[in-house]
C-alpha cells in the first residue's frame, strides 16, 4: 500500500504523484502523534526494524508501548541527520505523497501551529472521545477556517476508552458540527478511531459496525487537491520594479508573484490604489522559452507599453475583469499571537500582498471566545484571542474581501518588529478621503500618457520630482524662506519652482475665492491637482500655505502622491495638528535653507554638492 516513507523522497514514483500537505491539530494529549504513528506503522511506512526497536526500548524501561513513541523515535533519528524534518513526516499512498505536519497542541505553541497549518491543504483535527470537545479543539478549528483550510476531517480518537460507543461518538459529532456550522466549515468526515488499537486508522476491524465511512487513511486520499486559482480575476501584488542598467539592459520589469488569474501580452493592466494603467508589452523570464502569458502561482515579470510610475505595494488587475477594492479602513476577523495585547493608540504595520502601511486599531467590534464562540465587548485583543476589528490605515491599500479572493484578502499585523497577528478582510469601509481617492484613480486611469518616463526626466534633471511644503502662521517667514531656497536650488542647477497658495486665488480659484472658509477643501483639492501637474513635469515644487492641518496634508498627498516630500513649519510653536519634518524658529533663512537642503540630500531628492 505505501512505500517505505523514508525512501519516499528518493523514489522515482514519488515525483510523478501529487503532493499534499496535511496538518494534524487538536487539543494537547488527544492523541495526534498516536494516530500518525499508528498510520505509519500499519501501512509499513516505517524504516525497517523501527517498530521492534521501539517496542524493545519500552520493554527494557518497563513502560507500556505507545505509537506516539514512534514519532519521537523518528524525530530523534532525524536530529542525527539521516532523514527529513523534525516536525514533518513523509508518507505516501498510491495516489499521493503526503507531508504530515504534526502541529503542537499546547497553547504556547499556537504560532508554530499557525505556521505549520498555513502550509496545509487539508487537516485532521483529533478529538479525544473520552474527554470530548476541549478549548483547543475549537480554537484550532476556528484558526483552520481563518487560515483558509476548507477540508477538515474530525478524528474522534480513543474510542476504545468509551467501549466504541456510538452514542458518545454521535454526541461529539453533534456538538462539534454545530460549532463548525457557526464558522462556515463543513467537515469532510467524522471518523471514530482508536490510535492505540488501530481501529479505523489504516484498517477497519469490526469494532465499530455502526460506522461505514472512510478510515483515516482512506480519508487522506479522499481529500481533493486544490488547484491554483487560475480562473479568478488576475491579481498580482507588485513586488518591485526592476531597472538594472548593467550590460546596457533597458528593460523596466514589473515583478511579482501572481496571486490569481492569468495575464497575457497586450492585456490592459490597472494598478491599484494609484489607478495608473498600461498594456502588457512582454512577459519576461530568465532561461526559459519565450512566454506569452503568466498565471497563478508563478513568480513572474512583465514590461509595459507606457512609461508609468508605479511602486511596490500596488495590486495589478486586468481592466476587463472585476477590479479590486481600495480603502484605508478595513473590517476584519483577526487572530492575535503577540506578547502584548492589540490595543488602540499603538502603531502597527499592516502587510497585505506587497503593501506595507501604518495601521491603527480603530475599534474592537467583538472578541470571540474560541471555545464556545460567545462574544464579549472589550477594547483590546489579548494573546491567542480571535476578534472582529476595524483598522484605519496610514494609506489606502488595494485588496479583495477574503470571501471573494482569499489570496488578496488576508494580511498580517506587525507589532514592533514581529508578525503578531493575522487577519482576513470582510469589508472595506469608507473614510473621509474615499471620494478623493476614487477621483484620483479615475483621473489616473484616463490620463493621456507621455512617451517619456518619470525615470527619464529624473535622470535628465538629476533630481527626484518632489514637493517641499512650507507652512506656518501668517508672517512667520514662509515666503522669504521659499524664495531663498528656490534661488539656492536653481543656482545649483535644479529644476525648481516656488508657488504660494495665495497666488492661485485670483486665477484658478477665482470662482470660489469668496467665502474662503466653506471652500477650503476645494482650494486644497485644486492646489493638489496643480502640484500633481508640476511634479509630473519632473519639477521640485516649493509650496507655501498658511496654517495647513494634518487633514490638508493628507488630502494633498492623496491627490498628488508626491514621489518625494519634505515639510517645514515656520515660526516656532506648531499651532495646528500637522506633523512636519522640520520646525523652524526665527527667520534665519540662510541657515534654514541649509538645513532643508541637507534634508533633501538625505531623502535622495537632490544629489551632488551645495
Amino acid at each position: 500500500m505505501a512505500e517505505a516513507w523514508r525512501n519516499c523522497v528518493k523514489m522515482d514514483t514519488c515525483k510523478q504523484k501529487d503532493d499534499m500537505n496535511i496538518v494534524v491539530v487538536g487539543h494537547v494529549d488527544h492523541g495526534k502523534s498516536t494516530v500518525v504513528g499508528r498510520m505509519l506503522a500499519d501501512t509499513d511506512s516505517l524504516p525497517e526494524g523501527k517498530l521492534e526497536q521501539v517496542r524493545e526500548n519500552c520493554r527494557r524501561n518497563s513502560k507500556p508501548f505507545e505509537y506516539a513513541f514512534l514519532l519521537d523515535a523518528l524525530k530523534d533519528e532525524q536530529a542525527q541527520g539521516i532523514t527529513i524534518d523534525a516536525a514533518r513526516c513523509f508518507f505516501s499512498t498510491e495516489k499521493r505523497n503526503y507531508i504530515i505536519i504534526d502541529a503542537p497542541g499546547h497553547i504556547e505553541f499556537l504560532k508554530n501551529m499557525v505556521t505549520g497549518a498555513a502550509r496545509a491543504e487539508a487537516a485532521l483535527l483529533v478529538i479525544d472521545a473520552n474527554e470530548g470537545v476541549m478549548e483547543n479543539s475549537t480554537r484550532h478549528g476556528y484558526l483552520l477556517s481563518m487560515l483558509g483550510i476548507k477540508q477538515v476531517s474530525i478524528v474522534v480518537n480513543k474510542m476504545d476508552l468509551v467501549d466504541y460507543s456510538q452514542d458518545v461518538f454521535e454526541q461529539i459529532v453533534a456538538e462539534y458540527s454545530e460549532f463548525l456550522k457557526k464558522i462556515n466549515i463543513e467537515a469532510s468526515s467524522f471518523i471514530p478511531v482508536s490510535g492505540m488499537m488501530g481501529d479505523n486508522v489504516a484498517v477497519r476491524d469490526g469494532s465499530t459496525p455502526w460506522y461505514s465511512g472512510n478510515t483515516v487513511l482512506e480519508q487522506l486520499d479522499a481529500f481533493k487537491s486544490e488547484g491554483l486559482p487560475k480562473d479568478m480575476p488576475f491579481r498580482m501584488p507588485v513586488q518591485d520594479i526592476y531597472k538594472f542598467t548593467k550590460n546596457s539592459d533597458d528593460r523596466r520589469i514589473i515583478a511579482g508573484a501572481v496571486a490569481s488569474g492569468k495575464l497575457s501580452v497586450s492585456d490592459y493592466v490597472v494598478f491599484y490604489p494609484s489607478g495608473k494603467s498600461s498594456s502588457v508589452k512582454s512577459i519576461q523570464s530568465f532561461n526559459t522559452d519565450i512566454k506569452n502569458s503568466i498565471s497563478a502561482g508563478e513568480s513572474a515579470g512583465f514590461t509595459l507599453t507606457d512609461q508609468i510610475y508605479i511602486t511596490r505595494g500596488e495590486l495589478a488587475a486586468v481592466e476587463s475583469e472585476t477590479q479590486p477594492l481600495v480603502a484605508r479602513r478595513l473590517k476584519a476577523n483577526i487572530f492575535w499571537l503577540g506578547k502584548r495585547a492589540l490595543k488602540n493608540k499603538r502603531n502597527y504595520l499592516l502587510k497585505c500582498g506587497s503593501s506595507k502601511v501604518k495601521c491603527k486599531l480603530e475599534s474592537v467590534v467583538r472578541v470571540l471566545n474560541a471555545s464556545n464562540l460567545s462574544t464579549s465587548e472589550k477594547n483590546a485583543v489579548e494573546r491567542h484571542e480571535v476578534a472582529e476589528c476595524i483598522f484605519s490605515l496610514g494609506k489606502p491599500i488595494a485588496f479583495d474581501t477574503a470571501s471573494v479572493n482569499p489570496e488578496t484578502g488576508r494580511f498580517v499585523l506587525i507589532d514592533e518588529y514581529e508578525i503578531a497577528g493575522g487577519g482576513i478582510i470582510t469589508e472595506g469601509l469608507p473614510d473621509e478621503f474615499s471620494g478623493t481617492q476614487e477621483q484620483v484613480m479615475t483621473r489616473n486611469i484616463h490620463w493621456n500618457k507621455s512617451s517619456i518616463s518619470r525615470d527619464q526626466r529624473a535622470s535628465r534633471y538629476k533630481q527626484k520630482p518632489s514637493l517641499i511644503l512650507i507652512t506656518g502662521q501668517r508672517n512667520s517667514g514662509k515666503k522669504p524662506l521659499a524664495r531663498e531656497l528656490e534661488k539656492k536650488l536653481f543656482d545649483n542647477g535644479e529644476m525648481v519652482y516656488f508657488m504660494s497658495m495665495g497666488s492661485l486665488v485670483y486665477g484658478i480659484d477665482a470662482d470660489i475665492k469668496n467665502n474662503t472658509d466653506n471652500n477650503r477643501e476645494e482650494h486644497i483639492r485644486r492646489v493638489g491637482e496643480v502640484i500633481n501637474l508640476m511634479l509630473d513635469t519632473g519639477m521640485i515644487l516649493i509650496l507655501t500655505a498658511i496654517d495647513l492641518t494634518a487633514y490638508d496634508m493628507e488630502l494633498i498627498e492623496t491627490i498628488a502622491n508626491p514621489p518625494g516630500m519634505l515639510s517645514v513649519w515656520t515660526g516656532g510653536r506648531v499651532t495646528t495638528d500637522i506633523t512636519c519634518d522640520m520646525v523652524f524658529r526665527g527667520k534665519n533663512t540662510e541657515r534654514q535653507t541649509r538645513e532643508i537642503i541637507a534634508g533633501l540630500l538625505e531623502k535622495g531628492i537632490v544629489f551632488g554638492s551645495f
Partner: protein
Amino acid sequence: MNHLDKLEARSVHIIREAYSEFGNLCMLWSIGKDSTVLLWLARKAFFGHVPFPLVHIDTSYKIPEMIEYRDKLALEYNLDMVYGQNIKILEKGKTFPNGKCSRIECCQMLKSEALRNTLSGDWVRYRMNHEKGEYEADKNIEPYTGVIVGVRADEEGSRSKERYFSPRDKNNDWDVGDQPPEFWNQYKTDFAPGTHVRIHPLLDWTEVDIWEYIGRENIPTVSLYYDRGEGMRYRSLGCEPCTNPIQSKAKNVDEIIKELKSGKLKNIAERSGREQDKEDGGGLEELRKDGYM
C-alpha cells in the same frame, strides 16, 4: 506547474522580498551545489542580474578547484563578488590538523568567526574589481542586515526547524525555541537595529530537487561532485582536511539523480563526508547557534 516550478516560484518570491525589504543585503555563496542553485535562482528573480554582493567565506582550505570555479563564474556573470577570511588565525597557523585545535574549534574560527566579522564589516572584505580582474579591500564596511543562505530543511535536524526569514540577534544567536510565526507568504522583514535576518529560500528543497533542478536548468557545477574515473565523488563540499569523497561512479547529473533515487545512499547522511558534524554529538547545531550557516 510541476514540483520544481512550484519550488522555484516560492524561492524567487522569497529572494525578491529580501531584495525589496533589506537595504544592505548579501547572498552567501559556498561554491557548493545548493548555494549555486541559489545564485541561479537570484538570476531567475532578477532576469539575469544579481543585484547584491555574493559573499564567500574563504577558509583557505577549500579545494583549489572551488576557488577557480568561483572566480570564473564571478567574471562570467558579472557578479559583485566579495570574500572574507580569518587572517589572524591563518597567519598564526592555528588550524586543524596541524595547529593543535579540534575540527570544531577550527570551524568556529575559520567559518563562524570569519562569517560574523565579515557580515558585520568589522574585518576586511575583499571585493572583485572587474576591470582589473582581481580582489581588493572593499570600502563598504556597513553591516549586512539581510543575509541569503542556501540551507535546506532536510539536511539535518537543526536546519529543519528554520523559518524562511530567521532573525539573528546582535551576537548572531538564533533562538530556536521562540521563532516568529510565518504564514500567507508574509515574512519577518522588520528588525531591530544591530540585529540581522537570515533568509532561507531553499528550505523546502531536497537533495534530489537540487540535482533535478541543476539538470533541468543546466547550471554549471564544480566537477568535484562527479566521479572522474576513480570511483569516488564528493557529495558535499567543504575544507580539504575535513571533507571526504564517497564511493560512487556517478559521472554526471543524471547518474547522481539515479543514484540518489535508487536508495543506494538512503542510510548515509548527505553530510556524512563532513567530519565536523560528527564531533561532540550535536556538532552542527552548536555551530549553527553560533552563526554557522
